[in-house]
């Protein structure tokens, strides 16, 4: 064996994201489209948009993270990669975490990278958009790991996408709350809520891989 299975799962997830044409760009399109629908729904007053803009982006980010989640582990189940993982010495939780991290790099980080543009369009003050995008990247990581638990649990279910949403959305609540609070006062330095956001993401990173591993063992049976 040349490469460790954790590393190869990581590389494979990155490769898959770019293999299917615009695969990795689709969530970005969905994210931008969902955010752009908001002014049409609530009106174009600057003050109103400025007040709700950061929150709208959190909601759009949460929904966008779910768009690609369904296929996260299904392909590995179908092509037998999961069975091979189970035969290696590497812990399945580490492989699942590596795969989810790669998926976040391909489909989650681009979302955080375009939040400055979307934020400016939603009248968020220019000096706030860059610290905000760091918060979106951090919170998005937690979304992807909880979503990954849903994806692993529903790997054997056909058309499990909506089920993932129902399972994962309650688990998104703390991240959405801490994320929104962290953005309320970015101008005056790092607010304590940003630390809560980081803590909730760390919690997701610590707990979700073990739940994913248990769920993937079930899917492989």
């Amino acid at each position, binding site marked *: 064996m040349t490469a460790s299975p954790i590393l190869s799962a990581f590389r494979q997830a990155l490769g898959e994201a770019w293999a299917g044409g615009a695969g990795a760009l689709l969530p970005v399109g969905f994210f931008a489209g969902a955010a752009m629908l908001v002014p049409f729904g609530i009106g174009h007053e600057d003050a109103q948009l400025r007040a709700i803009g950061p929150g709208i982006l959190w909601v759009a980010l949460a929904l966008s993270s779910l768009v690609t989640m369904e296929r996260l582990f299904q392909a590995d189940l179908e092509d037998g990669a999961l069975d091979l993982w189970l035969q290696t010495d590497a812990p399945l939780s580490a492989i699942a975490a590596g795969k989810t991290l790669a998926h976040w790099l391909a489909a989650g980080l681009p979302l955080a990278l375009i939040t400055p543009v979307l934020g400016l369009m939603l009248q968020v003050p220019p000096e706030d958009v860059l610290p905000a995008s760091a918060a979106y990247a951090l919170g998005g990581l937690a979304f992807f790991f909880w979503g990954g638990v849903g994806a692993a649990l529903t790997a054997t279910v056909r058309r499990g996408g909506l089920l993932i949403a129902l399972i994962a959305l309650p688990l998104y609540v703390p991240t959405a709350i801490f994320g929104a609070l962290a953005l309320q006062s970015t101008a005056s330095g790092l607010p304590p809520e940003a630390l809560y956001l980081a803590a909730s993401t760390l919690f997701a990173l610590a707990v979700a891989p073990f739940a994913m591993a*248990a769920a993937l063992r079930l899917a492989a049976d």
Partner: protein
Amino acid sequence: MIQVFANPHRFMAFSKAVQPWLYALATVMIAYSLWQAFYVVAPEQVQGDSARILFIHVPAAWLSMSTYVGLFVCSFIWFIWRHELADTAAKSLAPIGAAYTAICLATGSIWGKPTWGTWWQWDDTRMVSVLVLFFLYLGYMALRAAMDTRQKAARAGAILAMVGLVNVPIIKFSVDIWASLHQSASVIRMDGPSMDASYLVPLLIGALGHTLLMVALALTAMRTDVMTRRANALVLRQAVG
């Protein structure tokens, strides 16, 4: 304790004997608390007659949370020891807990309209937390329903129940922080420092009655599940010849 009830035959005999008593006790206790609520206790000083809904709302709130803990405990026992009855219990508890959660939300809403002047108050942390709990129940039941075998439903459900429970304190904490920033001072709190004994005693009896009812309903659902399995096994055996 676990070992004793893990045997389905012993469970069926035990539950058959206990069940009618549980239903009878629950009925008497709930009827007593409702009779007190509607005919005996004086109208609350500030809220008037609307406070009477408390005698349904508070037991429902208590059971929405304790049933979820029960769901977790059963899932945990099943995950570690693989006792089939623990999974049967988890499967049976979920819809009962979801129903009590829905009752808690509905009665809270009905109480809130005359008291707060609104059906829904986002700055009340308990309402929001219970709403998230309701979604946790829905996700659990939907996941079980989507699995094609009983064994898979049990495993997936157990994993999700455990993930859900470790998240509950964090969800509660985050909702508390979130609401404390938007808190309006005019909200009248139900749980004042002192509650009159004429309220407290029927309330506790009602809560106990609903708890017994929950256990009785769970036992009925579990017995149904065990019998369904036996019937299926019988059909299979006959089909095989």
